[in-house]
């Protein structure tokens, strides 16, 4: 803070630079202005306005006539907070985001390490691994729905033919099922687990991409020295490579958690939020379009926004710290 203030004062003290700097400042503002206007009008202002909408008891059908400012009440917020489904929905959202994030990063790391040594065709394999992430979400969810289809899907067909399943498993429509494991009878949330598995499958390439980039940038000499001194591959990973990956893993964790926590497309397209998979963002959509309840949709979105604000602050601090170090 103080250094920036001082440099501005120092610059103002030198007249010729000051006028140049002023021209530069004017050009800079002018060039960046269109982007800023679009973002402010279509992102920032709507978000702020939706905070107000959360305090209104507004239905879609009244939209044409109802006043959009004023007339505030806490009815929508009370409605959302007192809904029985909210806490179930919050639980599903947290399970989905925590396991989805962790799974994607672990699988991404395993993939990055497995492909670290060059071999013929590595470039192609790397590109193919990114497919789940770059393909259209509607197409990827469709592929999974087809694979898991109880009537003709391959997973159920193979499960019945090769693994001796008695009946097809309704992976996307069954809330929970008992599973016997080592003599223990466990109840597994089927649809939620499937949706989480999809999230891991679809987003591990993102973690893989970042971790690969970081691994390639690591200086090779420390590792080589450690190997010469007799460190085994796992020791060298544990003590040399992993500590250097920690910062990027931290950034990835926050980034993936933010996005997974707010995922709408994946869950909506797989289950429409049924069978115990109604995450908060799908709830927002269902309030808005399903019930036409604008106030409740905004109130539910407000909950997401609060969690998100905390996460973004954490991310900016992490990113800032990294920027300061390098």
């Amino acid at each position, binding site marked *: 803070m103080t250094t920036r203030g001082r440099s501005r004062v120092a610059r103002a003290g030198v007249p010729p630079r000051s006028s140049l700097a002023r021209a*530069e400042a004017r050009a*800079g*503002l*002018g*060039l*960046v202005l*269109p*982007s*800023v206007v*679009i*973002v402010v*009008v*279509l*992102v*920032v202002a*709507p*978000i702020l306005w939706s905070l107000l*909408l959360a305090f209104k008891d507004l239905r879609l059908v009244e939209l*044409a006539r109802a006043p*959009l400012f004023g007339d505030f009440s806490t009815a929508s917020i009370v409605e959302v907070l007192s809904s029985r489904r909210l806490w179930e929905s919050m639980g599903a959202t947290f399970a989905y985001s925590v396991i989805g994030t962790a799974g994607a990063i672990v699988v991404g790391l395993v993939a990055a390490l*497995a*492909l670290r040594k060059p071999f013929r065709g590595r470039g192609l*394999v790397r590109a*193919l*691994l990114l*497919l789940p992430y*770059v*393909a*259209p*979400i*509607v*197409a990827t969810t469709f*592929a999974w*729905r*087809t694979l898991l289809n109880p009537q*003709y899907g*391959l997973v159920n*067909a193979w499960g019945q*033919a090769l693994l001796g399943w008695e009946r097809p498993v309704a992976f996307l429509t069954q809330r929970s099922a008992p599973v016997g494991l080592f003599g223990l009878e466990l109840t597994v949330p089927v649809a939620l687990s499937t949706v989480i598995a999809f999230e891991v*499958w679809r987003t591990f390439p993102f973690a893989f*991409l970042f971790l690969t980039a970081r691994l390639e940038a690591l200086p090779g000499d420390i590792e080589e020295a450690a190997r010469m001194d007799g460190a*085994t*591959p796992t020791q060298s990973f544990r003590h040399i490579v992993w500590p250097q990956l920690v910062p*990027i893993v931290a950034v990835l964790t926050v980034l993936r958690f933010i*996005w997974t926590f*707010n995922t*709408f*497309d994946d869950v909506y397209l797989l289950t429409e939020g049924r069978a115990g998979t109604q995450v908060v*963002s799908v709830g*927002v959509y269902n309030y*808005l379009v399903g019930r036409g309840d*604008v106030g409740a*949709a*905004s109130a539910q*979105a407000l909950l*997401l926004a609060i969690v*998100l604000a905390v996460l*973004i602050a954490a*991310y*900016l601090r992490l990113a800032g710290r990294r920027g300061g170090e390098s």
Partner: protein
Amino acid sequence: MTEATVSRDGTKSVHIVRSSRPARKFTRSRNAIELRVLKVLRPVVAGTLLLAAVFPFLYVLVLSTRDIASLQRDPARFWPALDEVRLDAYVDVLLPLESGGQDFARLMLNSAVIAVATVLITLLVAVPGSYAVSRLDFFGRRQVSSLFLAVYLFPGILLAVPLFVAFTRLGLRGNIWVLVVVYVSQTVAVAIFMLKNYFQTVPVGLEEAAALDGLGRLGIIRRIILPLSLPAIVSNALFVFMIAWNEFLFALLFLVEDRSRWTVSLGLAQLTNALETPPATLMAGSIVLTLPVVAIFFATEKFLAGGLTSGAEKG
């Protein structure tokens, strides 16, 4: 026993050698085991992941050539028999509604128009913007940078309610140009991040020389920056195209009422829920939806991977 060893070897380093000898032997064998295990594990893991990543797409591709009767008769068979391979589904899905098809040719055109318009407007706005953020020292530059980062992180679902309400009220919700502007607001931040990093690698000296020759800011951008950053700009354009082509939530919210305006993504999602569409037709629709993106991705994969990571890492 220690002393005996010392007297036999008779050097100062004996202590170290003695104590580390069994440890090193252990490490050496552990090292050998680890190396051998990893040598097997590495290709197995890589192969498994590759199969997991590609298999669902391959499955849909194969099913798009099999009719429903064959599928129900034998769902556990992966490869279709050569004599039953048909491409009828592709004809079905692409033909217009009047001819009994699913009109995907028109939906692809819609998607293409929306995506191309998004790319053009995004670049028009983001190129000068990222030049300013990377080069010029203006008041609020840091704040503008953080604003773009925050917007990049912000998820679409939070915008769904206010934008849906506002454009419904304005009577503009079904308008594809409104959708394009919404897409631009989503892509401009990413575009600025990717381009900013590239522009910083263009030597300042070139610009100074151009400025001495009397070029203004816009002239410098057009004559110096654009030609030198062409690869970055092209890959950025394709990246934005992919985002717009793949987008689902806003297309659903804005365009769902009028079938003639659907994008391909929206079309496939809507048809999946309609029970009467034959599976093979849906599979073909999914392939038609995926193919352009995959083609673009493979054409530009090197640029994209680099641009993505550098953009987000610096943030």
